[in-house]
């Protein structure tokens, strides 16, 4: 299958269409919604990484919040301590490097286990990051966090500009490009021989070992890749939010990551993307609607788990296949 045949696949055309739509979004969407949407996109980058572990490797991490925080704090702390490096083309590699280091260490510890033990261990190591962010306050700003300045982007300074102008302008297009690149890279990974190997491990680790796949090592690779996407999401999010606090490293946020992925439907590649964007809106509407927003979110979650476990995309796929299977009687 060559490049040409990929280009003419309908799925590719849909992707291209979505990308073009995204490019025009700032012209139609009010700024408030645009920024909310951007926040959703950064979560989507993270959720892509999270789902590489959940869907394609069969590992449920309950500590991805910490990896998200690593990306975000890499930006914040570079700004604090190395202001000369505060350029987005340097900040992103720094965030990726920090995520690489942390996720390698975390992965090394966590992939010794699977199932619930993996989840608990991921939670435990993530809380190390949370506790450090809180306690080492003279370095990390403690629970107050760190303010994120507008970065220099490809030589252009945005000093004096309002954040919303920055976010609805140049930054939006950068974010969309990063998001598109992340999606394409992740799509490539999950369909590659390596991705297939991960799925073999997920399905049957004993047999995977017996066809010559080094199970634990591949799980580690998956964890690291997942951490890189999550860290990238965190770095991109920090600019949108303008402020980073330890809350994102706490396990509650890790729980929200699981939630958004399942909301979109983790069985479908695009599910987590949709889930992340929807969750951003859902959470904000719940918070603005009632002081009991946790109740609302919790109730939605329980209903989702009980009634629509495949998530939105999974439910959609099910519906479509049901309609297709039913012979079209009466309808011309």
């Amino acid at each position, binding site marked *: 299958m060559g490049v040409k045949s990929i280009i003419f696949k309908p799925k590719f055309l849909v992707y291209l269409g979505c990308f073009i739509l995204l490019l025009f979004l700032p012209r139609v969407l009010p700024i408030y919604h645009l920024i909310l949407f951007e926040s959703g996109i950064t979560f989507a980058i993270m959720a892509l990484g999270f789902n590489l572990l*959940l869907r394609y490797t069969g590992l*449920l991490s*309950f500590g991805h919040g910490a990896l998200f925080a690593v990306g975000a704090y890499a930006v914040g702390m570079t700004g604090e301590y190395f202001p000369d490096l505060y350029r987005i083309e340097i900040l992103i590699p720094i965030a990726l490097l920090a995520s690489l280091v942390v996720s390698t260490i975390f992965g090394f*510890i966590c992939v*010794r*286990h699977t*199932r*619930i*033990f993996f*989840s*608990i*261990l991921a*939670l*435990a*190591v993530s*809380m*190390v990051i949370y*506790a*450090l962010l*809180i*306690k*080492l306050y003279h370095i990390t700003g403690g629970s107050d966090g760190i303010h994120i300045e507008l970065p220099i982007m490809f030589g252009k300074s945005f000093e004096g500009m309002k954040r919303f102008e920055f976010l609805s302008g140049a930054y939006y297009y950068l974010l969309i490009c990063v998001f598109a690149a992340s999606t394409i890279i992740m799509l490539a990974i999950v369909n590659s021989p390596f991705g297939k190997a991960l799925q073999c491990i997920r399905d049957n680790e004993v047999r995977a070992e017996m066809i010559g796949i080094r199970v634990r090592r591949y799980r580690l690779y998956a964890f690291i890749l997942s951490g890189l996407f999550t860290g990238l999401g965190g770095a991109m999010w920090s600019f949108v939010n303008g402020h980073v606090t330890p809350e994102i490293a706490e*396990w509650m946020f890790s*729980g929200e990551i*699981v*939630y958004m992925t*399942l909301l979109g439907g*983790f069985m479908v590649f695009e599910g987590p993307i949709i889930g992340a964007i929807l969750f951003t809106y859902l959470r904000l509407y719940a918070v603005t609607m009632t*002081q*009991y*927003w*946790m*109740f609302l*979110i*919790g*109730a939605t*979650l*329980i209903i989702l*788990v*009980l009634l629509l*476990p495949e998530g939105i995309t999974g439910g959609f796929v099910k519906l479509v296949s049901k309609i297709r299977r039913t012979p079209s009687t009466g309808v011309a």
Partner: protein
Amino acid sequence: MEHWVIYILNGLYFASFLFLTSLGLSIILGVMGILNLAHGSLFAIGAFVAAWIVGAFGSNSPITLLFVGLLAALGVAGVVGLALETSLIRPMYKRALEYQLLITFGILLLIEDLIKMIWGGTAYYASKPFTVMGSLSIGDNQYPYYFLFAMLISMLAGLSIWMIMSKTRVGIMLRAISMDREMAQAMGIQVGRLNTLAFGMGAALAGLAGALIVPTTPALLGIGMDPLILAFIVVVLGGLGSLKGALVGSLIVGETRSLGIVFFPEIELPLLFLIAVIILVFKPEGLFGR
């Protein structure tokens, strides 16, 4: 020297309610294979119920009220646990891990706000029993009798759980389930009912632990979050479903915290997580795990 005694005794007090919390978590995890993220919320329910009772009937003797509060907390949390198991948790046993975790996460969110709806966002104080009990002099230092009382209650509760688990039919069946679910089912054990019981028992223990803490800390929203995380560490340290593990794990965590707060307050919490992680790397099943 006397300072050390105080630090260690403080650690024991800390360990005592941690033991109850993690024992409950451990029973639920061991028997049902479900990590109950809402365990901290059951702890919070216990705390609020006890604090409310001690505060609302202020004219009575604080000690009597405390006993009533402890029992009520145990009962309310237990009943909530039973209700949760039969309604929401039960459909989850056959489902994948992610759904089991998410449903308890959903319950956590629900309960946190339910507490807010019932008791409002204000703090409830119940320090009377604490002051009434007075304190023991150790050299120049004072050590509250209440801490000893809490340890006693915790030991009694632990002892009764141990009796139930090792001496009664129900306990033996519960242990059989936690060892091999399918085998237990094949042997004709009614796994369904025992699940409900285990969840109720675990919840009641969490509630009792929550009640024990309120004479020293006001009941606040989110009061269950820290104990939940610490209980995770205890369970991880001690090994799944092991009573001995829960006890030793609580002692390690309790003492590390107590001494940590004094000597290296900055890294006391990260240190705890690090200890847990290191133990897990070398002994994946925990200290007393199978």
